[in-house]
């Protein structure tokens, strides 16, 4: 029972982080039609910024906040500096095939990933370092008994839960949230409604940047920080997004939690080395039996 509970709680905490990564990927995918391979590179970079600030005697929370703001700025910068010019009307007229138009931004995102890793290597010598957490990683005690959940897990779950609540309110209750959903679903009708779809898209990149930056801050106290640490997180987050449904924000979050449980339970009841096989099998099963994802909508042909 103890091992079950501990797998459950650690799965929830890990799943919460995967949910953030997956949410970040889906936000950009829905808004811009781009799979952003640079996403966790951006998160790695902003986590290094936070780490540097903490080294320079900033408090954890001010470093935390600055990392999130840098995440938003970096996301917006990728869109404005690279993706927008690459997908401009003038540029896309030079490309004859639709597949090239969709592939080029994806390859560009791989380029950004490389650049960010190189920059981290130059600035921070690429050495692996620890990253602090604001709460102790020990199990929570009631009297003398250890509970199966750590204070850090609770911190992660709480932070992500708050983020998801705020995100939901933003998307369902605000005009800007409506504009973002509308732009993703039908850019032409949205533009014809007087909304500056380009800027809405940039906002999507920025929010995605915040979500992944937060994921970086929450995962590195356990994994340590190096230019390559977060690569794995991108793969898991991507799997989560596909499992949940690339077209659905709620699906991406659900997929994140499912992946968290799969990984955590395989870890506890099987062996850590089987985790990757489990992820792969899970992805393939999802692709075979529900390629549109759990909450993804089927392509409906309008008549």
């Amino acid at each position: 029972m103890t091992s079950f509970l501990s797998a459950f709680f650690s799965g929830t905490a890990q799943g919460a982080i995967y949910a953030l990564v997956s949410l970040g990927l889906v936000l950009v995918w829905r808004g811009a039609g781009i799979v952003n391979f640079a996403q966790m590179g951006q998160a790695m970079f902003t986590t290094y910024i936070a780490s540097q600030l903490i080294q320079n005697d900033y408090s954890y929370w001010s470093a935390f906040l600055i990392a999130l703001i840098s995440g938003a700025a970096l996301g917006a910068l990728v869109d404005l500096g690279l993706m927008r010019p690459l997908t401009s009307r003038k540029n896309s007229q030079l490309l004859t095939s639709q597949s090239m138009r969709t592939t080029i931004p994806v390859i560009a995102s791989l380029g950004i990933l490389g650049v960010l890793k190189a920059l981290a290597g130059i600035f921070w010598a690429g050495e692996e370092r620890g990253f602090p957490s604001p709460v102790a990683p020990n199990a929570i005690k009631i009297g003398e008994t250890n509970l199966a959940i750590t204070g850090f897990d609770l911190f992660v779950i709480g932070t992500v839960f708050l983020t998801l609540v705020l995100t939901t309110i933003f998307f369902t209750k605000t005009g800007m949230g409506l504009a973002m959903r509308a732009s993703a679903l039908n850019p032409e009708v949205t533009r014809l409604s007087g909304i500056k779809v380009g800027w809405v898209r940039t906002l999507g990149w920025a929010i995605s940047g915040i979500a992944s930056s937060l994921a970086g801050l929450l995962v590195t106290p356990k994994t340590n920080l190096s230019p390559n640490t977060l690569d794995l997180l991108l793969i898991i987050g991507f799997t989560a997004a596909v499992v949940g449904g690339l077209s659905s924000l709620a699906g991406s979050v659900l997929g994140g939690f499912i992946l968290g449980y799969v990984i955590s339970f395989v870890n506890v009841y099987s062996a850590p080395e089987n985790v990757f096989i489990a992820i792969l099998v899970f992805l393939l099963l999802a692709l075979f039996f529900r390629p549109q994802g759990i909450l993804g909508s089927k392509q409906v042909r309008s008549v």
Partner: protein
Amino acid sequence: MLAITNLVTEFASIKALDNISFQAKPGLITTVIGANGAGKSTLLRTISGLERPTSGSITWFDEELTHKSVEAIVRSGISQVPEGHAVISQLSVAENIELGGLFRKRIARGDLATATKEVYELFPILHERRNEPAGSLSGGERQMLAISRALVSRPKLLLLDEPSLGLAPLIAAQIIGIINDLCRSTGLTVLLVEQNANTALAVADHGILLALGKVVADLPAKEMAADSSLRAAYLGY
């Protein structure tokens, strides 16, 4: 007044609009008719900024629209109801309507509520179904929703792209009738693109006949409707 002067729009060197000039007078319904492929939709899409003209100019009173962005053109008071009952099916009816007024939420919050109330009065069925996804509406209701989305932006010029396409004749007549009433009662300027020439000419003040991207007739609607040789030559009946 909407003035189109020597307008050319090309797709890969094919001239979809070939040197088009005409005017649409304020407060009146001008209809653009023509067979499939005459360039009617391209004309509307060029006015609303979705397509870029190769040359020529589009002006609304003194305002040059030719190289403005789609969003800026909407904000100048020109709203397009695109072809095919274009609504966002996954959003609710109320959200589709809200979307149309979103850009002026900060500057005219009070009027937005009034405008929303007005479109619900115009189309009570939309109020009844306001919380349902737009995708669940019938074709006619979707067209009403698309028009409502455009109306809450308080346009001065309404561009309608084949509003009767795919609708039962009775529903189409009802929608065209509402547009007509709206124009007469509020002074809204309407540019109505239609394949169904009879329906359009019956309510319009002025008719423009397009064929292969050129204006072949520019006449008061009554005269155009009466000219059987024009119909025979360009519309095939």
